[in-house]
């Protein structure tokens, strides 16, 4: 490498370093502001004074419930769709093309629009009110395309020859799915699941209009409840003096996000490749 | 077009190429006289391509590749660390097996490297492009679509464009890595005619699997072989002599079409 190339490498490296300053500053800030507040008490207790003091116990529970509802809807629907796309449809057929367009379309819908949709359908039309159920259902719609794409990729990675071998042994489609395809694709599907959960966990705008922002312990799925992300937003924007608690909550959320990312790496060994 | 200077001699002496622990070529030696075409033949995996990649130092790009020995172009060792690799590659052009024009316009395929080498004058740029296209017989076929994508050309035309791309830089040595093997017979014949027309003006080193082609084109032939999992040169010499009676019995059998 001659000298000019060496200088280019150095200049580009410097730019790369500068770009990393922002996320590093982010981690530094959230950690620095939040670590003082964070302890077991904070994780378990109820919020007090609009969240300035106390903890985030009910909020963690609400978040978990919303995620549970979201994934228990998205997983069967998404897996079914991916199976249909990979196994049941001719690749060049019109049905496949239409579905692919619809999926990409759904994946492009802004999250705030999902919020408007969920509010109208689940909160108003179905009469569920602001509730964990409405929030979970809306989130399921939102992560569906991401999860489907991940599963589709995992299923397509299964070699065609397995399928031909299965057909030559006169194994039924159901048998092939159960014994060969799904076990083979399981790590990829698990990675897709984890990444989709990560996306749902990070979402705020959708839940503002559907799950609401009540801070009490949720007693049923029809109760309103706020998630971690909503809590961070509310404390930072609407509660004066809420910053430390907000940063501590952000630290908890980042911790979850980190665990999810590491899980996805471990399971799937292919980070991000099918994120939208 | 005429090369700026007389073609140089090319001498490979005791050349070895290793990828990590794995040897690809061991102790290869051969001499190409100025303006002659040396065809390197032999089965797959016998280090032919590794030999070419050492001559224009493309081996530098392969992680873990180690090259030892000497490659002399007019008695200057190109493997010397002090050699300016970019200047070397300007003198040693290369054409690959797969026609690989860049996804740019036909003109830009040729002009891009010229501009990078400091040719700024519009008239000179155009002149050298036309010369290169004339030399490869492409000029009349593409003169009215110079600004169309190069990928719209047929396979044979694409390969001749790759020749033109290399020739425009006025190299002194040309490395040809199976230049006809991805082409249909008719395009292949055109490209062979082109290669034949280059003899005398450039020193050519051509890898080929096609013995008939080597016999038609080559002044000298070298036979490579795999021995103990590592490539080596069995025998080399003037084409007519070698095809008649190679000293090495293995090379003799290979050149007569008895493969094992």
């Amino acid at each position, binding site marked *: 490498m*001659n000298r000019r190339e060496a200088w*280019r490498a150095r200049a580009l*490296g410097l*730019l790369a370093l500068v770009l990393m300053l922002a996320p590093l500053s*982010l981690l530094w800030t959230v950690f620095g502001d939040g670590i003082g507040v964070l302890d077991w008490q904070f994780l378990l207790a109820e919020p007090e004074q609009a969240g300035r003091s106390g903890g985030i116990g009910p909020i963690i529970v609400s978040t978990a419930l919303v995620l549970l509802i979201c994934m228990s809807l998205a997983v069967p629907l998404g897996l079914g769709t991916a*199976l*249909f796309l990979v196994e*049941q449809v001719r690749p060049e057929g019109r049905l496949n093309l239409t579905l692919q367009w619809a999926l990409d379309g759904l994946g492009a819908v802004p999250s705030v629009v999902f919020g408007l949709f969920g509010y109208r359908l689940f909160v108003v039309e179905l009469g569920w009110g602001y509730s964990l159920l409405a929030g979970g259902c809306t989130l399921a719609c939102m992560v569906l395309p991401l999860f489907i794409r991940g599963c589709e990729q995992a299923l397509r990675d299964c070699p065609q020859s397995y399928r031909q071998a299965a057909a030559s042994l006169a194994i039924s489609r159901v048998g092939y799915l159960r014994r060969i395809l799904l076990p083979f694709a399981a790590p990829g599907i698990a990675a897709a699941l984890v990444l989709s959960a990560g996306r749902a966990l990070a979402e705020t705008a959708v839940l503002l209009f559907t799950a609401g922002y009540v801070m009490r312990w949720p007693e049923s799925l029809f109760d309103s409840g706020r998630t971690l992300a909503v809590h961070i937003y509310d404390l930072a924007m609407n509660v004066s003096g809420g910053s430390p608690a907000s*940063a501590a909550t952000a630290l908890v959320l980042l911790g979850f996000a980190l665990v999810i990312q590491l899980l996805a790496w471990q399971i799937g060994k292919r980070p991000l490749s099918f994120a*939208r | 077009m005429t090369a700026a200077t007389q073609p140089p001699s090319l001498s490979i002496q005791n050349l070895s190429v290793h990828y990590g622990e794995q040897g690809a070529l061991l102790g290869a030696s051969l001499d190409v006289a100025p303006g002659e075409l040396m065809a390197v033949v032999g089965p797959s995996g016998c280090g032919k391509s590794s030999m070419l990649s050492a001559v224009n130092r493309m081996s530098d790009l392969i992680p873990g590749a180690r090259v030892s020995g000497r490659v002399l172009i007019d008695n200057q060792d190109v493997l010397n660390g002090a050699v300016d690799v970019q200047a070397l590659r300007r003198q040693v052009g290369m054409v690959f097996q797969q026609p690989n024009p860049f996804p740019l316009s036909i003109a830009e395929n040729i002009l891009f490297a010229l501009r990078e080498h400091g040719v700024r004058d519009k008239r000179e740029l155009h002149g050298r492009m036309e010369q290169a296209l004339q030399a490869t017989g492409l000029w009349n076929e593409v003169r009215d679509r110079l600004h169309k994508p190069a990928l719209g050309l047929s396979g044979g035309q694409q390969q001749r464009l790759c020749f033109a791309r290399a020739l425009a830089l006025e190299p002194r040595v040309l490395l040809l890595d199976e230049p006809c093997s991805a082409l249909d017979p008719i395009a292949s014949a055109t490209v062979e005619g082109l290669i034949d027309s280059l003899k005398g003006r450039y020193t050519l080193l051509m890898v080929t699997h096609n013995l008939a082609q080597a016999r038609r084109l080559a002044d000298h032939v070298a036979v490579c072989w795999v021995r103990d999992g590592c490539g080596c040169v069995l025998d080399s010499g003037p084409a007519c002599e070698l095809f008649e009676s190679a000293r090495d019995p293995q090379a003799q059998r290979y050149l007569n079409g008895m493969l094992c």
Partner: protein
Amino acid sequence: MSISTPLSLRSNLDWLLRAASLGCALTAAVVLLLILLFLTQASWPLLQQPASLLGASWQPANGLFGLQAMLGASLLSSLLALLLAVPAGLLVSIWLIFYAPAAVARVYGAMLGLMASIPSVVYGLWGLVVLVPLLGAWLPPGASLLAAGIVLALMILPLLMVQADVALRESARRHLPAALCLGVSPWSAIRRVLLPAAWPRLWPAILLQLGRALGETMAVLMVAGNVVQWPGSPFAPVRTLTANIALEMSYATGPHLQALYLSGWLLLVLALLLMALARLYGSRT
């Protein structure tokens, strides 16, 4: 016939599987249709009088629902984000592939993965606590179009770079050796050959990220200042369409609510158009 029973049972099961998976697959399409339907329906009364929406002033209390300024702010902040993220992202991708030591590139790649997994609300929090005061000390008030652009740029950067990485590597695999054989420097080969060759795959990625930036709500809401106005400079506070929806949804009723649905409809149409453009562009090449 003993063999006929299990055979028909099997095909019944297969048929059931097919029906069930078709049902699942249609759900995605149905949800998209429902979204289109609901948003169009909810904003229908206002959609019929488009002239009133082009106005510059947004005063829901007085029945003025001009979306012009907020649409402008949405577009400007997203374009600004692209302007910041695309050149920087491409340059750093190039560094990672062609110049950086392998170990450094691996660590950097992992950092990008983490950066992608940071929730948008946390970016917003950082913007609010660090970026806005920083900009404010330089040119008040700090909460501004520029702040929104920077935060959006950070958010789209990781995915943009993942896609640039794929496109550039593919381009290098096909063209780098041939380009270097012509005796040009790696940098010229990248600039003159690899980047032009990669553009057909980079464009769709950029369009998709533009769509993401347009639809982003929370981070922008937290740093943009939320004043409804055409920004006179990058340092002026603005309110985007998405932020407006999030801010006013909790108390809007009647025509006001319709106007919010209409802004959602507008965002939806824009996002779908961008997606369609990206797909058409991607399939053409």
